[in-house]
């Protein structure tokens, strides 16, 4: 599989890109920091034990560069079977409430610009007769919850967008995979108190790779979060107002 990967340098993206490289997928890395991308590229090469991994800059805050970045990926890979997006922005709700400009930036990165990036990717994949678009949304988008109001709103929008893509383009060969991680212990969530059922990035990556291979439109990771979120979606409003979760 020829994969363009936005966000492979850290967290779940790092774990997932390693699994892909280790099993022989050709991976091309996109991200903000070129030096950091190069280090991750060397890591994937060393772990896979063969091939060379290319990289190009791509910043979710700069949508003007999306087309060029995906062009570079397609050219280097000599094709494109899948695009994976694990990159995103995160900040605590309290910080976003204090600083409206910070909130605007997060909403723009996690919703508008991620969707714009996916639009570029979608066109390219469809032009090649289809492929997989796997994007990391979040369980935070499943219900309006006090600790993740703004982040959750952006992810809710992203999940809806991916759902729509799946409905419209699946028949044309575009397999959209919306990944909804629950709480996963990564540097993004460092300093937050992990709830029960907190996941490990390597385990999440295995689940996600399985979902990508099977083309499942929605995947919760770790899987138990599907049932946790089902329960939370069913809680009546007066309960949601009282609990802190």
């Amino acid at each position, binding site marked *: 599989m020829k994969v363009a990967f936005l966000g492979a*340098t*850290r*967290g779940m993206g*790092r774990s997932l890109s390693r699994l892909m490289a280790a099993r022989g997928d050709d991976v091309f890395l996109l991200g903000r920091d070129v030096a950091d991308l190069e*280090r*991750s590229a*060397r*890591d994937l090469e*060393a*772990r896979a*034990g063969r091939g060379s991994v290319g990289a190009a800059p791509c910043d979710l805050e700069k949508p003007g560069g999306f087309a060029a970045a995906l062009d570079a990926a397609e050219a280097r890979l000599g094709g494109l079977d899948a695009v994976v997006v694990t990159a995103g922005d995160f900040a605590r709700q309290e910080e976003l409430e204090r600083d409206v400009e910070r909130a605007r930036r997060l909403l723009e990165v996690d919703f508008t610009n991620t969707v714009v990036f996916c639009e570029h990717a979608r066109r390219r994949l469809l032009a090649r007769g289809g492929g997989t678009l796997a994007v990391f949304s979040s369980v935070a988008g499943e219900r309006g919850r006090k600790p993740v109001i703004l982040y959750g709103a952006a992810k809710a929008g992203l999940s809806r967008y991916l759902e729509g893509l799946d409905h419209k383009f699946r028949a044309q060969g575009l397999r959209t995979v919306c990944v909804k991680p629950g709480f996963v212990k*990564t*540097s993004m969530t*460092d*300093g937050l*108190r992990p709830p029960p059922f907190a996941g490990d990035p390597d385990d999440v990556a295995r689940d996600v790779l399985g979902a990508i291979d099977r083309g499942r439109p929605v995947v919760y990771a770790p899987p138990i979060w599907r049932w946790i979120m089902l329960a939370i979606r069913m809680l009546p409003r007066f309960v949601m107002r009282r609990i802190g979760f």
Partner: protein
Amino acid sequence: MNAGSEGTLSGWGRVPVAGREVRSEDLEALTRDAVLCRGLGRSYGDSSLPPPGHPVVAATPLADRILAFDPATGNLRAEAGLSLRALNRSFLPRGFYSPVTPGTQMITLGGMVAADVHGKNHHRDGCFGAHVTRLRMRVADGRIVECAPDREAELFRATLGGMGLTGHILEVECRLVRVPSPWVLTETERIHDIDRFIEGLKEAGSRWPHTVGWIDCLSRGPLMGRGILMKGRWAEPHEAPRGVPVPRRRPSVPFVLPGWVVNRWTVRAFNAVYYRRHVPAVRRAVVHPESFFYPLDAIGHWNRMYGPRGFTQYQCVLPESAGRGAARRFLELLTRRGGASMLCVIKDCGPEGIGLLSFPRPGISIALDIPIHDETQSLVDALNELVIAEGGRVYLAKDQLTRPEHFRAMEPRLAAWTCIRRKWDPEGRLRSAQSVRLLGDRP
């Protein structure tokens, strides 16, 4: 993680102090203001724990990228948080393995350098530091420095075994060894007493690259020091099964067992069964390297077995100069004091390496687990006094209870090491709970 309840951290022995970890993939940023790095928390005592005045450690395990590997030479460069398990699992299928490995693979490269770990092949291949070719470090004044045996050599030598106190280790370059197959051929042998054991280790060491012994340190009299001697080497292709060993999923001790589970009688029963089950007296097998090198890793959270008060591991080396009776004198003292230990490991050490504070020296190393009781401190004091009298020393990666005056008496090398440490960190910024306790660093 061995993070205990909210706001505490502990070593593998599960004796907590106030502290927390800050984690990031970006070790350069993470270490800018840090006073101590911590890897996977497998050191038993307080060496990975923060000083009371600065209860935060920089956790390295997310900084785990391999930066370069040359299959022609086996040279590897990686970020310091790379675990030995990830390294072995990546490279064993390609015919490479770590040149030296401690008894767990849940350890980071940075931790392997900081403790200058040794393994079952110490008598032949020395410490891990002997195979390290370069280190990238952030030193106390914030600069980033590369050191090697021939570049900033003092810093390099002080860092091998320096317990992370000379600078933060960011990247490690070392040489992996080529192995003929991914399997290990072992021979195990039942041994009747301690004197025979020490002879057996010496003799096996001339023929086998990997040797170690388990001894029953509750048996007395003529049976004192009976146990099982384990020998191993990488299997040649024609001796090995086809295919690559597959890592197994491991069971785990699900919660902290009550404190009475490990006591003199249960340990005695365990030891007797373990010893008697070994028939015939000599057995050969081809095994998974993980079960040969890391038998304890097979049980997740085995440290919970020792109950809510936790445990300490005591490891000392008794030098050759102390004579062959030293190990017997040590065991006599231990059995007299009733130190019940499920795990007692004995190993002969080869020549001292270049690490200025590295643990091994020619002689016999003995390691044992001691559950924490009210008398544990006085037991450790007594053992330390014997070790001082024999001219030996203890292993900092295990230590939790040694007194500073005892440590000074064991370590004539301390002054030279401290001098280099002070040169790189005049204000004494980098420190740990252990360095506060043992070296008199400011809290």
